[in-house]
């Protein structure tokens, strides 16, 4: 190998190390003629848990899907670790909304988790023992090892959510996207998800979570993105998750009530 190419390799590696896990610039998404997400730009810091919050219809899920290329955006760019999503796909894990699939599909929990390996397996090849072991290990992590062979319709909503999380873990990604993982889950699942998020942070992974429960934002997340069609604010929770900025995001839909000497936020 010549010195020239060596240098070049070095430089691209350095560039990649410096690049943010996710950089979004000027993304606009429209259904029919109405803009749902307008001119949104932000970059995620590495190794942080980031909440994407905003009122209903603010375009949170839409923005997430547009970033992942699941729906077309009419303008804007997405860079993942400084490169296109297409090239960096293997470093991205995705947890869709639970309602997005038919849970009566003839398959079991372990099989769904193994789907997380399909991207690495390539065409035609079947998952083997290695994939099975990895899938079992990730099921273990979300406390679902005992349900590996359970048909997925026989699982509770929270357990189904944990299966989806395990599938994303099986992708062994560096950047995770989760669409409302806390929606409608039981306490045990909520605990399992929090533990998992903590572990991902310790491993230096970056996680973007569409979240709707304002009361837990400060407890669970490091950074926050406030969205209401446009990006209202982005940054560390301590600086960004403030009454002023929340009011700007939620408008009149938000009330701040005093409770036991502490202020609580309530979405009307």
């Amino acid at each position, binding site marked *: 190998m010549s010195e020239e190419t060596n240098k070049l390799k070095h430089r691209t590696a350095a560039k990649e190390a410096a690049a943010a896990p996710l950089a979004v610039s000027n993304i606009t998404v429209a259904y029919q003629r109405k803009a749902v997400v307008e001119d949104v730009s932000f970059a995620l810091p590495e190794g942080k848990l980031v909440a994407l919050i905003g009122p209903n219809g603010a375009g949170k899920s839409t923005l997430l*899907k547009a970033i992942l290329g699941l729906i077309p955006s009419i303008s804007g760019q997405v860079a993942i670790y400084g490169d296109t999503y297409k090239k960096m796909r293997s470093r*991205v894990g995705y947890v869709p909304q639970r309602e997005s699939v038919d849970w009566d*599909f*003839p*398959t*079991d929990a372990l099989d769904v988790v193994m*789907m997380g390996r399909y*991207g690495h397996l390539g065409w*035609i090849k079947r998952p083997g023992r290695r994939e099975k072991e990895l899938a079992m290990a990730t099921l273990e992590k979300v406390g679902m090892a005992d349900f590996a062979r359970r048909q997925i319709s026989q699982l509770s909503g929270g357990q189904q959510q944990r299966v989806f999380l395990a599938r994303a873990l099986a*992708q062994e990604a560096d950047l995770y996207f989760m669409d409302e993982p806390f929606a409608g889950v039981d306490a045990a699942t909520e605990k399992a998800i929090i533990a998992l998020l903590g572990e991902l942070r310790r491993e230096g992974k970056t996680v973007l979570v569409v979240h709707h429960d304002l009361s837990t934002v400060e407890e669970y997340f490091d950074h926050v993105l406030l969205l209401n069609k446009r990006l209202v604010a982005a940054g560390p929770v301590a600086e960004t998750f403030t009454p002023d900025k929340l009011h700007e995001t939620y408008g009149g839909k938000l009330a701040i009530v005093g409770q036991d000497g502490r202020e609580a936020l309530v979405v009307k």
Partner: protein
Amino acid sequence: MLEWLISLWSDPNTRWILLGCTLLGLGSGVIGSFTFLRRESLLGDTLAHAALPGVCIAFMLTEVKSAGLFLAGALLAGVAAVLCVSAISRHTRIKPDAAMGIVLTFFFGVGTVMLTHIQHSGSGSQSGLDKYLFGQAAAMVTGDVYVLMGVSLLLIVLALLLFKEFKLISFDPGFARGIGLPVGLLEHVLLILTTVAVAAGIQAVGVVLVAALLITPAAAARYWTDRLPVMLAAAGVFGALSGTAGAAISTLGEGIPTGPVTVLAATLLFAVSLLLAPGRGLAARALRHRGMRAAYARTVDGGAPPTGAAEGRES
């Protein structure tokens, strides 16, 4: 009975036809499982009815009756029908099910007009094209059977090779797109395989009923298992049994069309599955429900003996 079975097997032509219909049922059942799970059952019916004008045009252009040519005509007509359905649902406010209803009947209407025209023209009356409405397996010549068998085998092999990909786009297309599978392309491949299954089956089963060979075995198979590979196998077996039964019984008498017999056999298997399958079947559900009610009655009675009081109240 035994004599009849032996006579079926001893005639080489009938033997080939039986084998062809068995393979057709197998292939249709396997591909149809994906159609069923993707909730596109009506699409199969649309493709089948749309095939009729394709077959007629192929005959009018060439004046030759050949399975390969008709397959091509049916395929093209099927693709045209699907394009119409997606154009209507994309550019208007009409929902896909209504769009399919419109396209299906329009194509079938055009096909029927063409068929009538062919029947009344000179060479057409001998064409036996009317058999394409309800199918006549016995009318197939060896060349037709070879095409049928080749196509069915191709369907099975492709479905097995792309099993993992087809499963993922059927269960969670969003996730599939996320990991980089060309979901649009795979959906088109699956659609074409469905069209091929339907087009291959029309000579034996007929355009009116061929969709049943796609959907009914899959619906029946779903009752027996919660595992997709087992479901594909069961649907294949049910389809094969239906195809064999249709071909065998229709050779009994000159006038019996294959399609209706095949469909009756498939529906019988479906009815048995619906009623008797363990787990999901109606009988199993009723038993489970009864058991649960009895158990509940026992707990409410608080330690009453399991037989006696609780059961006495129920009856």
